């Protein structure tokens, strides 16, 4: 099995890797780069815990083969904070107690970021649709929806 050369940008840093192709982006992030903020849940694209942004769009990193990020930009939960300041979504999740066990949180944050980047003023239905691919088994959805709504207000200010 030949390794594959890729050029990519992960959390705003440029990389050149030589990768084994038979691995998912999820495993690569966690096991090769140590970016364990992205969680490994079902690994069949059902739970959304592994959600990252690929060229700005929310995707399940368990359903992306590593060589497919060649020439593309990846953003994980570790890339949300800037200059040691948390992203407004992260602040808002804490303010609203939108984190219960925390396992779904990184995926929720990334789906929420994808939504707000495209639609800075979403209504409740749009928020619920945006996180419909993210399961929270503590079922703390109400606080999560409120947190996203509140963050959208804060970002607009």
């Amino acid at each position: 099995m030949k390794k594959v050369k890729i050029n990519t940008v992960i959390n705003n840093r440029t990389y050149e890797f030589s990768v084994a192709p038979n691995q998912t982006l999820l495993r690569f992030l966690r096991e090769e780069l140590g970016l364990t903020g992205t969680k490994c849940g079902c690994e069949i694209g059902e739970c959304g815990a592994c959600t990252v942004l690929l060229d700005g769009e929310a995707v399940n990193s368990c359903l992306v083969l590593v060589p497919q990020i060649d020439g593309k930009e990846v953003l994980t939960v570790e890339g949300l904070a800037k200059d040691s300041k948390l992203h407004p979504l992260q602040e808002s999740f804490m303010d609203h107690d939108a984190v219960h066990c925390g396992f779904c949180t990184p995926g929720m944050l990334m789906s929420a970021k994808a939504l707000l980047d495209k639609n800075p003023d979403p209504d409740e239905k749009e928020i619920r649709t945006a996180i419909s691919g993210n399961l929270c088994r503590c079922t703390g959805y109400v606080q999560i929806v409120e947190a996203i709504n509140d963050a959208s207000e804060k970002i607009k200010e």
Partner: protein
Amino acid sequence: MKPFEYKAVHSVEEAVSVLAEYGSDARILAGGTDLLIELRKQNVKTPKVVIDISFIKELRSIESPNGTIVLRPLVTHSEIVTSKVIQQYASLLMSAASVIGSPQIRNKGTVGGNIMNAATCADTVPPLIALGAKITLRSKANSRQIDLSDLFVKPYQTKAQAEELLTEINFLKLSPNAKSSFIKLGRRNALAISRLSVAAILTQDKNGKITDARIVPGAALPVWRRVTEAEKLLIGEKPSKELFVTAGQKVSEVMISHTGRRWSTEYKEPVIAVLVRRALEACL
């Protein structure tokens, strides 16, 4: 994941020549939402080569020349949902794409993959067959166009040869007096796999009489097809609840004549009839 060789191709020419070389030893990677799950299964034969077509730009566009719509296979479900042309001239396809999986799946999953994977629950297929879609399959030596409804052999099996690549899906725009709908029944709202679905198109004349009807159930028959037996009952009639109930019962009868009575029939028999009625009512 077991080892395999990976080849990224950047044009249709390159793709078909690599396919000609590897044939059935290769699997095509597009959106990856089905293939990656398969590659990770322990007891499945791993392909020697994975051919990644996701970088081919010419296979990712929606065009509308001369009253037709040309969909390229790498168009994602999200792109179908946001396409103005699809919204206006094939809204049932938009409805179907909007309920596939989750936002993450819709951002990656492609219409070509949905077709070629040929799962009975593929949601874009019933609308495309109702629209009378034709597809183009290209190999290094040949290019052929067939009706989408002629592609399927049985669940997860198509008549496409191993060295053929799906390069185009095309269909006529719906006329302004045609109305369409797609109804999906899943076990939950998001990330649901269709238990049953119905794609319907109705065209009425000035006096309200039905001049054209198309009904394609999903996850109901071994291979998709228009249920002309039920469509015939509608032509020349004016819409009414009784008429739509009769059409629904006919679809139910046809389904059982194909599948026989099995464990799920007790449920599917009345439910498909109701879904057909609702889909037709949604076309008014």
